[in-house]
């Protein structure tokens, strides 16, 4: 194994860099830009049982060092993902992919996960209990330890693949949610999803986003994300995927030092479609400069310190 490799819930990754869900589609479109096999893996677009158009537009607002989005889980539904998107992906990606799943009821989460469990290319299920942009689902499961645990149990019952729970930062105590997920059998947690935010257009005096509020991401949230990754990584013993504003090889290393096992990159992909490739390319040089021989020496290294 190379010096960039890490192990995520029993599956070896060539490197810890993972494009985050919602910033990389179902992958195959990006294969036109570069060989996506150089990624550790990627987390595909949040998928629900039924197709969804998502929220009205505008769905995007620019912010200092970041952005707001209120896309609202637009996706073609799990059946189309299995019939159309995954076959296209299989032609250009020869690694396990992370399947990101969202839902509006415990049953829906379980049903969608059960279908994706049968897909050989799906390596992990990343269950999003943290989408801030849909009503009556998503984040409401991620803000209550009991509700989060009930999703974990329902999903674990229908799959043998590792289950990662994607957590929202929009809670008083993210550690208690992470612990509830671990106790309920989750194989890992990924954090943080976006921070709830909003902007107002000074000319119209109305919210910029049609959905009024949206999820704030980008470099501005990196310190918040890092702090939460640190807190969670020190409180649970399952792997943590760190994300939130990661934009450089140095950010990846910082996340790993905070206790993450792997790192997702989100908003940066939307500003630079080559962001993940560039981060992976610059990791060896950054490691050498900092005297890091292998990433595995970082992952988990500080977790109990």
């Amino acid at each position, binding site marked *: 194994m190379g010096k960039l490799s890490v192990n995520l819930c029993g599956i070896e990754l060539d490197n810890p860099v993972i494009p985050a869900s919602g910033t990389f589609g179902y992958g195959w479109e990006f294969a036109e830009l570069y060989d996506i096999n150089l990624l550790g893996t990627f987390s595909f677009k949040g998928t629900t049982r039924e197709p969804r*158009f998502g929220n009205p537009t505008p769905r*995007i607002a*620019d912010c200092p060092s970041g952005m707001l989005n209120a*896309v609202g889980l*637009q996706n073609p539904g799990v059946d189309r993902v299995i019939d159309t998107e995954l076959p296209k992906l299989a032609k250009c990606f020869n690694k396990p992919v992370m399947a990101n799943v969202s839902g509006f009821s415990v049953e829906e989460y379980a049903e969608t996960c059960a279908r994706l469990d049968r897909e050989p290319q799906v390596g992990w299920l990343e269950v999003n209990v943290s989408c801030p942009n849909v009503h009556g689902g998503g984040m409401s499961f991620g803000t209550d330890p009991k509700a989060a645990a009930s999703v974990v149990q329902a999903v674990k019952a229908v799959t043998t693949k590792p289950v990662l729970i994607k957590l929202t930062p929009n809670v008083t105590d993210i550690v208690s949610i992470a612990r509830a997920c671990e106790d309920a059998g989750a194989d890992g947690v990924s954090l943080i999803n976006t921070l709830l935010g909003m902007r107002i257009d000074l000319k119209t005096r109305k919210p910029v986003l049609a959905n009024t509020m949206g999820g704030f991401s980008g470099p501005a949230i990196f310190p918040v994300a890092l702090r939460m990754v640190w807190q969670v990584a020190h409180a649970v013993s399952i792997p943590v995927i760190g994300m939130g504003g990661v934009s450089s090889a140095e950010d990846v290393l910082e996340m790993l030092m905070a206790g993450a096992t792997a790192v997702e990159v989100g908003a940066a*992909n*939307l*500003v630079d479609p080559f962001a993940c490739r560039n981060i992976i390319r610059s990791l060896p040089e950054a490691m050498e400069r900092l005297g890091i021989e292998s990433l595995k020496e970082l992952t988990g290294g500080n977790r109990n310190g």
Partner: protein
Amino acid sequence: MKDSVFTILSQKLLTGAVYELKLRGDVSDITAPGQFVNLRLDGLYLRRPISVCDLEDDCLTLIYKVVGKGTAQLSRMYAGQSLPILTGLGNGYDLSLSGERPLLIGGGVGVPPLYLLAKRLRAAGKSVRVILGFNTASEVFYEAEFRALDCEVTVTTVDGSCGVRGFVTAALPADYTHVYTCGPEPMLRAVYKSIHTGGSFSFEKRMGCGFGACMGCSCKTITGYKRICKEGPVLQKEEILWES
């Protein structure tokens, strides 16, 4: 799509808040008129999308109106400065639909993408009519440039201070083979209702990435959900589904 660094050759104020920016760089991925580029500006997080107005060898012309922070910052840049740009975005106009007498209708800052289109259509020997709509005489730009391409040009102004008084639809000719248009959505709707041929409509929407990754600019069409930045910005008349 290509990410490369362009150098500013010139920047010129055309009218009140409309600027013409000429840049030199790698334009090889720009394949059709009506496509756009996405500019990365210092200190701003998301890129700013602007339609391609003209291409000449390795020189790219953009025309934009100052409407916010990004365009205001862009207007303060000058010759010699460099700008990272994603090029070759969007589908652009399909020249094969034009027929022999295409009609081009632009409103305000919807005019620029029609310029390269007119140039290509003229080069293909088409007889090109152009309607350029503005609010008032002081906002009119590129009339002479279109005339220099030997297009038949009509200017309309809402207040009648230049050309035909009224909206672009006040100047519709009787005979044309296809309509290519770009402008504010109320204008596009009016054009949609008024024309008797097929039409290619270029839409504007607030974008996140500009290359299809974020689903920020999705819209519903007769033929399914489309991303304005990827399957658009040009939609065909038959597929447009107007949101009320």
